């Protein structure tokens, strides 16, 4: 038995998140933002850090930061200022990054993470505006190449309190925050493009026989997927527990805190540097940028841009519209989808059928085309009508999918398309019975299974039903077909 018997462990995680704001221009100059433009094609004397130039604050970035702060229940500063964070690196042309030190634009707030079993509140410590650095490209021999297109891109850095206690909760929080920033429209938050980056600060509280210990804190740099956040925290916590068991001095305050990087291929965190020789960033107020005051009027005006937030909307869809929580989550995930869904309800569509078709038809069509439902070019009225005629039994479910596909290129109404494509459901029993009889006549082996092979009977009925639908050109009512198959193939009592 180990000398250090562990009774209990508890992971402690605080997150730092960088969100790239969806502005047209950079934080302090009029250069446009670009992801893959030729190197140094979106730069000017300001973002190149030429002497004698003066930065000017982007009003939209300021509004976005306030909007995000309001969405996270933050105290918005009535007075906020700009500071220089000094360090030397080739991607930082001025040798300082403009950031906000002691008077950030957003102060304390909180984020309520819903869960049926274990709802949590993650406190927000602060959120501040800053400019991104450029990019260093290291893969050439003796030199480093520098592209400053990204230098000056507006970022919102959000910092939470260490209120997260599992890797799964960290994943849930990051996903929820991602949904929030896209919902309020402050960021596209495209993670492949690095528009949202996560840095968990991880340590572990260990309860053991002799008392309570804490491991030193590791900051895992620059994660760009929810999955890597979860995996990195899981790995790092286990690594710290093992290190604590093996090393007497591995305690918070005794051993140094460190920065680590996540190696996704190997599934491990790797040491980068200790924070013992902590960078001294020599923050000082930026004399080139004057402070900003935020009035009540301005805040009120920005508050009107705040939509219903995803968590509240999900709750309402479950309580008022009687959606399952899973369906509510799927529909609310993208604002455009949820908006269209609500517009279609407004246009008279039946809620239950609409929610099914949103997910099974419209979202799947959008996903196939790698786009958003809003970009399919289908109106809320059309979506509502399709759900309506499906709900009434005028068309069956598979016909609904065909009609939906036709609606992408054809401006006729779903009703007209149903007629046009011959998909109006036939409810006539005689006609349906003729189709069923044809299927029975043509498929003797399946009929045999239904009648005398209990193991295969169910599959055989399904097969016959499919045959009837095919023979009818999709016009048969599946429910009626099922009833007729059963009626015609029930062994008659001798």
């Amino acid at each position, binding site marked *: 038995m180990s000398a250090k018997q562990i009774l209990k462990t508890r992971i402690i995680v605080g997150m730092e998140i960088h969100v790239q704001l969806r502005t047209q221009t950079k934080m302090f100059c009029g250069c446009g933002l670009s992801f893959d433009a030729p190197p140094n094609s979106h730069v000017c004397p300001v973002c190149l850090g030429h002497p004698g130039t003066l930065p000017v604050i982007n009003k939209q*970035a300021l509004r976005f930061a306030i909007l995000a702060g309001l969405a996270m229940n933050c105290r918005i500063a009535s007075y906020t200022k700009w500071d220089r964070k000094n360090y030397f690196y*080739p991607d930082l042309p001025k040798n300082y990054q403009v950031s906000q030190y002691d008077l950030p634009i957003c102060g304390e707030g909180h984020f309520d993470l819903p869960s049926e079993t274990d709802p949590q509140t993650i406190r927000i410590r602060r959120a501040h505006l800053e400019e991104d650095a450029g990019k260093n490209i290291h893969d050439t021999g003796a*030199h*480093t190449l520098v*592209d400053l297109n990204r230098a000056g891109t507006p970022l919102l850095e959000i910092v939470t309190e260490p209120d997260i206690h599992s890797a799964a909760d960290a994943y849930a929080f990051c996903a929820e925050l991602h949904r929030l920033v896209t919902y309020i429209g402050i960021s596209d938050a495209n993670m492949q493009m690095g528009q949202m980056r996560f840095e968990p600060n991880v340590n572990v509280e260990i309860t053991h026989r002799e008392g309570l210990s804490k491991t030193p804190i590791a900051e895992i740099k620059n994660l760009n997927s929810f999955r890597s956040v979860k995996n990195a925290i899981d790995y790092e916590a286990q690594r710290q527990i093992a290190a604590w068991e093996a090393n007497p001095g591995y305690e918070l305050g005794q051993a140094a805190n460190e920065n680590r990087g996540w190696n996704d291929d190997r599934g491990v965190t790797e040491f980068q540097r200790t924070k013992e020789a902590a960078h001294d960033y020599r923050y000082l107020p930026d004399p080139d940028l004057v402070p900003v005051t935020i009035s009540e009027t301005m805040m009120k005006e920005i508050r009107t841009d705040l939509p219903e937030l995803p968590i509240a909307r999900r709750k309402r869809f479950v309580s008022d519209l009687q959606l399952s929580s899973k369906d509510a989550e799927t529909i609310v995930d993208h604002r455009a989808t949820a908006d269209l869904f609500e517009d279609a309800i407004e246009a008279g569509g039946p809620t239950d059928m609409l929610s099914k078709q949103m997910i099974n038809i419209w979202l799947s069509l959008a996903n196939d085309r790698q786009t958003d439902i809003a970009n399919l070019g289908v109106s809320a009225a059309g979506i509502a009508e399709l759900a309506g005629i499906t709900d009434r039994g005028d068309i069956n479910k598979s016909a609904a999918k065909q009609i939906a596909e036709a609606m992408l290129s054809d401006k006729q109404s779903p009703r007209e398309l149903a007629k046009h494509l011959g998909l109006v459901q036939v409810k006539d029993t005689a006609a349906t019975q003729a189709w069923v009889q044809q299927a029975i006549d043509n498929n003797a082996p399946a009929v045999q299974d239904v009648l005398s092979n209990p193991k295969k009977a169910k599959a055989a009925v399904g097969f016959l039903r499919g045959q009837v639908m095919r023979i009818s050109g999709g016009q048969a009512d599946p429910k009626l077909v099922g009833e007729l198959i059963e009626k015609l193939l029930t062994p008659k009592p001798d």
Partner: protein
Amino acid sequence: MTKSIDADMVRRVAILARLRVSEDEVQRYVGQLSRIFDYVDLLNEVNTDNVEPLTHALPVTNVLREDVVRPSLSSEQALANAPQADRGFFVVPKVLDQESS
């Protein structure tokens, strides 16, 4: 009171500023910087109990611009003063084992 300036602090500040200073210079700067700090320390004699902290020297706030794209430099112009450039990039000595923040 302000922290006094000693040789270690001068060396530390020199490292942060990426300045190479000789031992002679360290000693000289300890003297010079101490005198500057002592002078600035005179401010501590002023009673500031009822004075609002000042965060900026200019009595101006909210100088903002609309989020409208303005022309950038051409890549040729951007690189015109670069000591070394290659395929549109600035070229700098190889950066090793350091990371940005």
